[in-house]
């Protein structure tokens, strides 16, 4: 803790000589920089904030703001959108089908359609929570865990259940989260543990638990995986999505892994993995990459890992430590992340207090930009960072604000996944949003005209903007009406490469 105290004495710019220089020559940078650090917290612990929310936060201490974020995330509701158990209704369909084949085909078609819509509804509901709802920190953490425990399922009930599990434990103990996910129907299905039986072990689940969920590559042996797989034999689920332990399929013999021997059950393996400090390091590193900077600061991560391990993997404690650490606000960390497509969408909503009246284009945009919720590319999740950006995704991102506020459609066709049963997000509806620009413009009432562009930019961008570029944009905005001017400025600024980072 001595080190931490020492850190407080260090000016945020000190490790970047260029910025120190800028700091000395431009005085107003002080207040802009303070505002950016506040926005930094809102972006990383959530999905950004509106200018008014930022203004209200300017006079509060970081500690107070962090406290508010946690307080705001204390209460939460689980999703309860998917009522029927699809497997059961599918069974009914098949039963009735004995009489009429054509009718069965029709019903199966309806069933598939309904399933797609339900998964789509879950997606809509989650984006709405991120973009508008209470408890942004919890949603941000849930999104992180969704990427950490990346999983696909065709059953909406399973998806909903898993998402609720992630949300419930999002800020609790990592050990509980890991155990709950290891017994989660969608995950057991995705990683083939239903097929993991004494007579023919399937190592998929055991491997990913170590490689992706706890230790990371290179911190276990193939024997550890084989032995762990034996301990997980018999772990399965029923059609209601409940965890079931099939004693009959379980291997009751002695297993030896990580130099420990015993008649281990799956639970024991998870305990062994948690007792290894490497798990704390691995998770801390990933959290740092996601919430602070893709470029690791070894010292900061080591401190996080130590604290995480000592607190018995208390996620809330760790995140509070990160958000209240001075190094979190170092200028090298501000604006250093490329927003994921979902962060981009939810972020626009948060900043503008905007609502998507028709959710279809939101789904389509996720697909076009490469991040469909509940559809990670594989169990390793979305690679993130620079991989979000290529020529086409960048052009689409830059055109998005304009397309959105003109109520147009994205001029992009999305790929076919190849799967005949897959959700087709091919419906290209026009964007429909509700947004009160007068209300948004009020935040800038006191700003003198000559500063308007600069000030609006300071609320929208987490990195400085070239003054020549800002001039070019200001020159394009020729409306007499101030609200309309602010709208045009906002749309133009949100179309910049600078807006893609936070």
């Amino acid at each position, binding site marked *: 803790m001595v080190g931490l105290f020492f850190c407080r004495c260090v000016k945020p710019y000190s490790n970047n000589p260029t910025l120190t220089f800028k700091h000395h020559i431009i005085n107003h940078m002080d207040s802009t920089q303070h505002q950016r650090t506040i926005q930094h917290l809102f972006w990383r612990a959530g999905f950004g904030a509106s200018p008014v929310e930022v203004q209200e936060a300017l006079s509060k201490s970081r500690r107070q703001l962090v406290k508010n974020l946690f307080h705001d995330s204390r209460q939460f509701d689980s999703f309860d959108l998917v009522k029927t158990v699809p497997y059961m209704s599918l069974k009914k369909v098949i039963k009735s089908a004995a009489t009429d084949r054509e009718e069965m085909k029709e019903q199966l078609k309806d069933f598939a359609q309904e399933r797609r819509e339900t998964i789509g509804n879950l997606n809509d509901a989650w984006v709405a929570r991120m973009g508008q709802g209470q408890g942004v920190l919890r949603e941000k953490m849930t999104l992180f865990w969704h990427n950490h425990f990346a999983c696909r399922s065709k059953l909406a009930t399973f998806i909903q259940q898993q998402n609720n599990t992630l949300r419930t434990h999002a800020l609790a103990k990592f050990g509980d989260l890991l155990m709950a996910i290891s017994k989660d129907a969608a995950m057991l299905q995705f990683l083939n543990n239903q097929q993991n039986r004494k007579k023919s072990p399937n190592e998929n689940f055991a491997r990913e638990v170590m490689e992706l969920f706890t230790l990371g590559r290179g911190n276990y042996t193939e024997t550890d995986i084989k032995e762990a797989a034996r301990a997980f034999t018999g772990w399965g689920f029923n059609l209601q999505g409940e965890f079931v332990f099939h004693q009959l399929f379980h291997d009751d013999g002695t297993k030896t892994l990580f130099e420990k021997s015993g008649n281990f059950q799956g639970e024991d393996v998870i305990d062994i993995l948690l007792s290894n400090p490497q798990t704390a390091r691995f998770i801390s590193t990933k959290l740092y990459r996601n919430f602070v900077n893709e470029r690791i600061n070894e010292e900061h991560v080591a401190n996080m890992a130590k604290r995480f391990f000592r607190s018995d993997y208390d996620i809330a404690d760790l995140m509070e430590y990160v958000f209240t650490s001075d190094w979190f606000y170092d200028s090298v960390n501000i*604006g250093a992340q490329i927003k994921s497509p979902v962060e981009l969408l939810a972020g626009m909503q948060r900043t503008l207090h905007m609502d998507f009246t028709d959710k279809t284009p939101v789904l389509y945009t996720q697909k*076009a930009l490469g991040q469909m919720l509940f559809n990670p590319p594989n169990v390793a999740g979305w*690679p993130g960072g620079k991989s979000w950006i290529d020529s*086409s995704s*960048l052009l689409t991102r830059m055109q998005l604000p304009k397309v959105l506020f003109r109520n147009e459609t994205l001029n992009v066709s*999305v790929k076919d996944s190849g799967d005949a049963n897959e959700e087709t997000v091919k419906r290209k509806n026009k964007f429909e949003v509700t947004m009160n620009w007068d209300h948004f413009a009020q935040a800038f009432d006191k700003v003198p005209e000559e500063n308007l562009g600069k000030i609006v930019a300071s609320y929208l961008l987490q*990195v400085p903007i070239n003054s020549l570029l800002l001039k070019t944009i200001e020159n394009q905005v020729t409306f007499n009406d101030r609200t309309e001017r602010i709208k045009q400025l906002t749309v133009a600024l949100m179309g910049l490469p600078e807006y893609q980072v936070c």
Partner: protein
Amino acid sequence: MKRREFLRNSAFTTAGSLLIPQFLKAYERQHLGQQSLNEKSVVIIQLSGGNDGLNTVVPFRNDIYYRERPSIAIKQENVLRLNDEIGFNPALEKIKELYDNGLVSVINNVGYPNPDRSHFRSMDIWQTGSGSDQYLSTGWIGRYLDAQCKGQSCLPHQALEIDDTLSLALKGQQVNGLSLQNPEKLYGQTKSAVVKNIGSIPTADDHDNVAYLYKTLAGTVSSAEYVYSKAKVSKSRVMYPTTELGKSLKTIAELITSGVSTSVYYVSLSGFDTHIRQNDQQDRLLRQYAEAVNVFVNDLTANSRLDDVMIITFSEFGRRVKQNASNGTDHGTANNVFLIGGPKRTRPILNEAPDLTDLDTGDLKYKLDFRQVYATLLDDWLKTDSKLVLDGKFEPLRLF
């Protein structure tokens, strides 16, 4: 292609040269009128959904094949025979024509160890060139670009996908390929007011990611202009089918004929996930494929470019040997790969027909790792070092 040659062709840009118009002019000066007949390129055709290999290259003398597929097997008398054992699905008549001219290699039983039967995962594996227990976030074409552009930055059009969004296959660590539906559309997008105004303004920020975004943007704008200006040079005089694939291959042919410095083209045709009533659907798709490729090959031949172009066709997996109850087939494993174009073949068929007596729980066993096919294209066709692109050494097939 030698690395130096590749770099010259890729119109490398340095971090400071974001002033695109001048930069492009310099590029044009360097390349206009330059004949690049020694350049080799690869055209990748991805059949998405898992094409049924057994009904594509049919083992027409095999009793097990007919026994396991009572209602969907291709009748012996309809098969377009390649030898005494196997023959093409009749929908591939136009590919058979090319085969008879010595322009087609059929590689049987291509796959990988511990096959994954999920579309997403298996396509992931094929596109990244990973093993089934590995998760890579870059594609094999992307890593090919990385290897060629090491120490320099290349322009994205060096690998071109004909689509609106970019596949993982073309994403590298340092360099990404470019995706475009057609040169006009992309050019139009980069000409839009937003992009045009900022493309040449250097960023005020020294953040690594902002620099990366601007570099991507600059690369996109110059590639779009370059490809657009080149595409106008040579318009195809041949009639292509009006299908999506036909249009895409026409675009590719025009770019190749115009001498665009692209080494890899990528295009996909989807709909091969034939769980229900397979034959109508597969027949329609294979016919689309064969007709478009046939015109494409003849177009390139007429322009004396076929010797430099190799077309590879693959799918993420084959399908089960046994048909299902809906006159379709379910997800399987090993599959055939076609290599079309380039020099004439002495050995048109590689690997024996699949052994239907030796199955792995109802699925074909692979005999050749797909990364060996990639290594063949990388080492022997594009003349690069496949070890830099693939994880480990994969033995090339010595086809050319």
